[in-house]
């Protein structure tokens, strides 16, 4: 331990910290915590592993499949390929999105963050941008990899060109869905501030509420279901519309984005008003 404190005086610039500095700072934060990297590795393992497993079993069992199932696979193989991977992969994205902000509250690191960047909306914006870019790039890589893996395994029974109707939209859409889901979870994490509560809340919202809405009879049920955040978002990676579908693919995605924007705004407002 030295007894001197004579660091070189750096002349403070009179202007506020540039947004680029905030992005760099948030990038350092996100990459320097183990849970981030583990969540992303888990996303790749789950998405690719399950796609490989499902399509592999399908190929092996091809001869003993029911004719109806076989026809379903031949007419719409992409939904089988993308479905399993994204359904499980989304859990890691929810955990990651929530933890990116809630862990700052549970550890107290948020106080260091806000002392460095007291303009809280700038902090929120920088965090959201870094997170979105990271999750978008990785989700798209994972979704394209899952698609190529699945179509290669099913190749002997059905050919699936990326240029087929709605196929490219579904693959790109799956990555977009995961990205927006990450932001959606992050906003809930920022609002609830407790890791366990926010993860449970998001999963309840995404996985429990959605099937429940299908119990509502008639077209009311269809409308309510389609306008729920992740049910709407999911339409963007479905190649074929399902019966009772109210919204078009991109329309559904827009509804999901609107929900997410609403939650982000709610988070921004409370962030400004609440004590850290």
């Amino acid at each position: 331990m030295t007894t001197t404190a004579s660091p070189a005086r750096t002349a403070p610039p009179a202007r506020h910290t540039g947004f680029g500095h905030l992005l760099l700072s948030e990038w350092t934060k996100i990459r320097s915590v183990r849970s981030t990297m583990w969540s992303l590795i888990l996303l790749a393992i789950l998405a690719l592993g399950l796609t490989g497993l499902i399509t592999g079993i399908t190929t092996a069992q091809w001869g003993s499949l029911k004719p109806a199932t076989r026809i379903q696979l031949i007419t719409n193989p992409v939904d089988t390929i993308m479905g399993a991977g994204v359904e499980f992969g989304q859990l890691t994205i929810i955990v990651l999105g929530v933890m990116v902000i809630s862990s700052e509250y549970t550890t107290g690191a948020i106080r260091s963050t806000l002392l460095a960047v007291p303009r809280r909306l700038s902090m929120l914006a920088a965090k959201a941008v870094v997170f979105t870019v990271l999750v978008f790039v990785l989700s798209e890589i994972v979704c394209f990899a899952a698609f190529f893996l699945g179509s290669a395994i099913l190749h002997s029974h059905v050919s699936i060109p990326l240029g087929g109707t709605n196929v490219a939209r579904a693959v790109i859409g799956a990555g977009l869905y995961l990205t927006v889901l990450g932001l959606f979870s992050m906003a809930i994490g920022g609002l609830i501030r407790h890791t366990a509560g926010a993860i449970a809340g998001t999963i309840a919202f995404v996985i429990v509420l959605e099937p429940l809405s299908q119990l509502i009879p008639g077209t009311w049920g269809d409308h309510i279901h389609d306008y729920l955040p992740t049910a709407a978002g999911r339409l963007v990676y479905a190649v074929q519309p399902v019966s009772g579908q109210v919204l078009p693919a991109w329309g559904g995605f827009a509804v999901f984005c609107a929900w997410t924007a609403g939650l982000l705004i709610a988070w921004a407002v409370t962030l400004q008003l609440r004590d850290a």
Partner: protein
Amino acid sequence: MIEARALTKRYGPKVAVDNLSFTVQPGKVTGFLGPNGAGKSTTMRLLLGLDRPNSGMATINGVPYRDLPNPLRTVGALLEARSVHTGRTAFNHLLFLAQSQGLPRSRVQEVINLVGLGEVASRRTGGFSLGMGQRLGIAAAMLGNPEVLLLDEPVNGLDPEGILWIRNLMKQLATEGRTIFVSSHLMNEIAVTADHLIVIGRGRLIADCSTREFIARSTHQSVLVRTPDPARLASAITAEGGQAENRDMGDGGSPALTVTGVPAPRIGELAAASSVVLHELTPQTGSLEEAFMELTAESVEYGQSSRQPTAETPPVATAERSGQ
């Protein structure tokens, strides 16, 4: 310079900080004292823009914290509550803070060396001892080489070497003309470090004066005298206008007197004039701890009678003390 103007903060029905005003001047170490729950940490949080006051204003160099460009280059803060992610290494914690201020990576290494954390910089902070966590907090505070430092209980968990180090660091930084505002519950620590004191109780200002003045104003000045002939000396002192009380030292030595109203040299002269032998003649100055206990005890009384002590005339303790 740190300024609090009529700061008030309520948490529900509880008033944590009540119409608090004070100024912390540069060039000296200002101690921030108060009993537990007096509102010290809340005040720090208000000064740093972490909490919003219900009314009033806090500024640093004339600007609210939230409006400071690159705040860490102006203000360094060590909070009492932990404020690091346990899964991040010390180096990365300091690195993201430095990057947010546009500070170079080399500055991170400088502050790590400054606080002596070189060997553990690449370890996750979750495994840090209280003392290591405290050093990391001080490193973060020093990162931007700030003019103003707010330190909440900085010696918490530090070993004696660390305490001496932080004490010298604070004094040196003050000599360089920086503003140092430090809270502590360790009275002796404040007594040897702080030049000036701001004392609060129940969220209100009790005293804002120099450390020496604070002790002098709020404790009795008395002289301990031991002599084999206390009666003669006592009458001489009474004749001089002072007061002498018999005191039982409980050590079987010569009888003792506690003298007030007559200074020690004059007692010596009186003893010589009346041919009384003195075995001991010791001026008793109160400790900061005693002064603090008396003043904050009063703050509770004032609080109950809803009278507000002011900065200009802090209440001076009048209760009789049994002395040491």
